[in-house]
């Protein structure tokens, strides 16, 4: 394992720690008396410090070291956790994150001396305690503490033992066994030290053995017996423990342990290059498509043995597809984690009181979707803070709870993920939307006359539509809801909003679980094959020219009490300007589609069949084409374009 591999593991662990710290600090800010939260923060900071130390990232080490001291001082009540302290800690975390990013891309890291000095100052000023300067001295003092407590224990007639436990090599539930050992030992006495730390033991991050330093009145025999009763324990030794004189010529224990942990983690998780993974996923996609083709072909042969074999193949392929798709799935938590900070910072700046509630953070969706969805989500949240939630006095006047709520929730529904962003602010006034729409020339008053309230509200997604009265150039007001909508639509998703004036606004986002494979209906238009996502198809019908009416220059049909606009795919794609429905006595195939709340009928030349396809991008050169969402390669090698239904109707 080369140094760069360690670096990767280090970065992912360190980023995880920073995230945890950010979250805990946010909680702590709201609940400063909660000592448990503080305790939970010390561990990751220490871990950052020692990991960075091992890797030789000095800036991080010294920053983490000062943060640790500051946290200690808070814990020991030497420093009050007031705003400037939390702000400094937040700043430190931001800087830390920045350093990690720099390490990741291989840039030279920033010098953090200024920040370190700031931290030192606050620690020195607030606590009269003098701290040693470097971490070796600190380690020494840690050892002294250890010695101290052992001495005290002996004075009280307690014994101090070193308990070494070795688990069976093929033990499946290491963490559980370790937990049981800890529980037994704790029943008998105190654990002064655990190697590795208790948290790691309980998460199963250790090789097959671990050591505990225990002070107890119980005999070594008793401890040994108790532990041996636990299943899957290979060997237990209990010996009297003496503090050895520090002989630290070799790499320190901490360094060894870090390396061991890194190795350990690597065994549980295999890191794979994203490209390799995508390649496999692509291949499986092709396999799925070709399976369908083979199944089709076999039908005409009528060979029952072949049919059996193919059914088996079909099943295996489906399982393989599902398994591979899971590799792409990640928790939405990844992006959720960013939002508490966003809400905190922005609401402070805007002088608003806001509580962020997040539901369904375990919801999984395709990694490529997760990567893209963060930006539109944070935009909507910023919008809710900026324009949705009122300031506290206004809320009081309106008889609302003083603290506004933004609720972010995610859940699965069928083959979709639904994400909702809801605020209890003042909602959107359709009268203002109406005025703006006229002002911006989006709609004429006559057109607006015919639209329902709901349809008018959805106009906020139109290009360049901005509801904010004042122009706050300093803040992220660059892109509006039109941008959000277009991002969601490139993901084959939909967005809509519900709003009640004075009550609040809710954005509903519907996303596909995965982007790589979709089911489409293939249809022929002008000798080319086009694919229409089954997702947006309601039904297929045949229309006789005599049933087509003209209304306001458009062709429409009546379908079960509903008026449906007909769209010629041929002319929409600019293939041919020839009039459709030349032959009065032929029935023409029409696909009824629905997207973004609108329905329409696509006139095509011929319906072919349904198929699962692998979506391929058309590349940068052809990006953003009107009406085309991508392409796919059919089993016969021909390229079929995928129609972008929502932009066509």
């Amino acid at each position, binding site marked *: 394992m080369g140094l760069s591999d360690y670096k990767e593991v280090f970065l992912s662990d360190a980023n995880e720690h920073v995230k945890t710290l950010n979250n805990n600090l946010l909680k702590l800010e709201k609940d400063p008396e909660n000592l448990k939260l503080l305790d939970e923060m010390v561990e990751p900071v220490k871990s950052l410090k020692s990991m960075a130390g091992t890797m030789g990232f000095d800036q991080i080490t010294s920053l983490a070291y000062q943060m640790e001291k500051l946290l200690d001082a808070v814990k020991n009540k030497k420093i009050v956790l007031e705003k400037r302290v939390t702000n400094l800690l937040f700043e430190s975390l931001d800087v830390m994150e920045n350093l990690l990013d720099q390490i990741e891309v291989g840039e030279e890291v920033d010098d953090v001396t200024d920040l370190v000095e700031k931290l030192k100052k606050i620690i020195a000023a607030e606590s009269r305690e003098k701290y040693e300067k470097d971490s070796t001295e600190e380690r020494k003092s840690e050892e002294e503490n250890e010695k101290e407590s052992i001495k005290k224990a002996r004075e009280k007639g307690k014994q101090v033992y070193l308990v070494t436990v070795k688990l069976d090599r093929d033990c499946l539930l290491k963490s559980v066994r370790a937990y049981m050992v800890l529980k037994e030992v704790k029943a008998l006495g105190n654990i002064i030290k655990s190697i590795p730390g208790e948290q790691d033991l309980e998460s199963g991050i250790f090789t097959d053995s671990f050591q505990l330093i225990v002070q107890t009145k119980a005999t070594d025999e008793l401890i040994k017996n108790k532990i041996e009763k636990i299943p899957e324990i290979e060997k237990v030794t209990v010996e009297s423990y003496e503090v050895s004189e520090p002989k630290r010529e070799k790499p320190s224990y901490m360094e060894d342990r870090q390396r061991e942990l890194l190795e350990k983690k690597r065994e549980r998780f295999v890191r794979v290059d994203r490209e390799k993974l995508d390649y496999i996923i*692509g291949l499986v996609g092709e396999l799925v498509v070709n399976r369908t083709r083979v199944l089709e072909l076999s039908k005409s042969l009528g060979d029952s043995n072949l049919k059996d074999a193919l059914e088996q193949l079909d099943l295996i392929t489906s399982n393989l597809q599902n398994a591979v798709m899971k590799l792409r799935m990640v928790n939405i938590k990844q992006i959720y984690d960013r939002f508490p900070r966003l809400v905190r910072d922005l609401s402070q700046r805007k002088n608003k009181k806001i509580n962020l509630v997040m539901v369904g953070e375990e919801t999984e969706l395709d990694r490529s979707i997760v990567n893209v969805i963060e930006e539109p989500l944070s935009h909507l949240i910023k919008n809710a803070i900026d324009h949705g939630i009122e300031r506290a006095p206004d809320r009081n006047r309106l008889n609302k709870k003083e603290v506004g709520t933004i609720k972010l929730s995610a859940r699965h529904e069928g083959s979709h993920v639904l994400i909702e962003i809801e605020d209890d602010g003042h909602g959107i006034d359709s009268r203002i939307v109406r005025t703006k729409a006229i002002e911006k020339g989006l709609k004429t008053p006559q057109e607006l006359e015919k639209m329902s309230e709901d349809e008018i509200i959805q106009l906020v997604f139109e290009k360049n539509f901005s509801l904010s009265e004042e122009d706050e150039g300093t803040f992220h007001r660059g892109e509006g809801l039109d941008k959000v909508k277009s991002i969601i639509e490139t993901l084959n998703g939909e967005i809509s909003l519900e709003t009640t004036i004075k009550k609040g606004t809710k954005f509903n986002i519907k996303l596909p679980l995965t982007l790589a494979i979709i089911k489409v209906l293939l249809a022929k238009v002008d000798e080319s094959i086009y694919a229409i996502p089954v997702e947006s198809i309601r039904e297929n019908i045949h229309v006789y020219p005599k049933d087509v009416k003209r209304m306001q220059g458009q062709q429409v049909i009546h379908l079960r009490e509903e008026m449906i606009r007909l769209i010629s795919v041929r002319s929409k794609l600019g293939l041919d300007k020839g009039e459709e429905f030349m032959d009065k006595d032929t029935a023409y195939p029409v696909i009824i589609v629905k997207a973004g709340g609108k329905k329409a009928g696509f006139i095509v030349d011929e319906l072919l069949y349904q198929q699962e396809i692998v979506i391929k991008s058309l590349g940068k050169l052809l990006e953003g084409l009107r009406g085309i969402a991508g392409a796919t390669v059919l089993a016969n090698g*021909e390229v079929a374009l995928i129609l972008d239904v929502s932009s066509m109707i």
Partner: protein
Amino acid sequence: MVREGSLTKGYIQLVIFNLYEEEFGINVNHVEEVLRLTRITHIPHTAEYVEGVINLRGEVIPVINLRKRFGIPDDIDNEMKKRIIIVTIEGDKVGLIVDSVREVLQLPSKVVESPTETVAGSKSEFLEGVGKYDDRLLIILKLDKIITTEERISLSELQEWQEK
């Protein structure tokens, strides 16, 4: 050791192709492979010179007709000789339809005149330079600009430049 396709110091390697009686060169480093004409799927709402997309071993790749790109009438009689040169521009593969592909040529860099030395014509951004080789004049194209912008380029402008 010199890697295949890379430059020997002081030399530049070009894939030479024909287009309307002119000889063009593109740097071999950009070229992935050369194909015969294959089935092209037309793409609506694109510039006229974008012929469509092809399936290259499962990958979907856009194809540009260089004749149309330079405003030369298309020659549909000699389809058999036509080739698609697959090039990589900024990480993306793109196919270029040319009349025929002649050879790969190694040219001393010093015989290539770069546009800045001669004329600062408006279209010089599409050119790497002109190579003089024996009696031949090779127009060496700068592909990224030609492919990524939609600005009109005409052959006569390129020729005009070449004559100076």
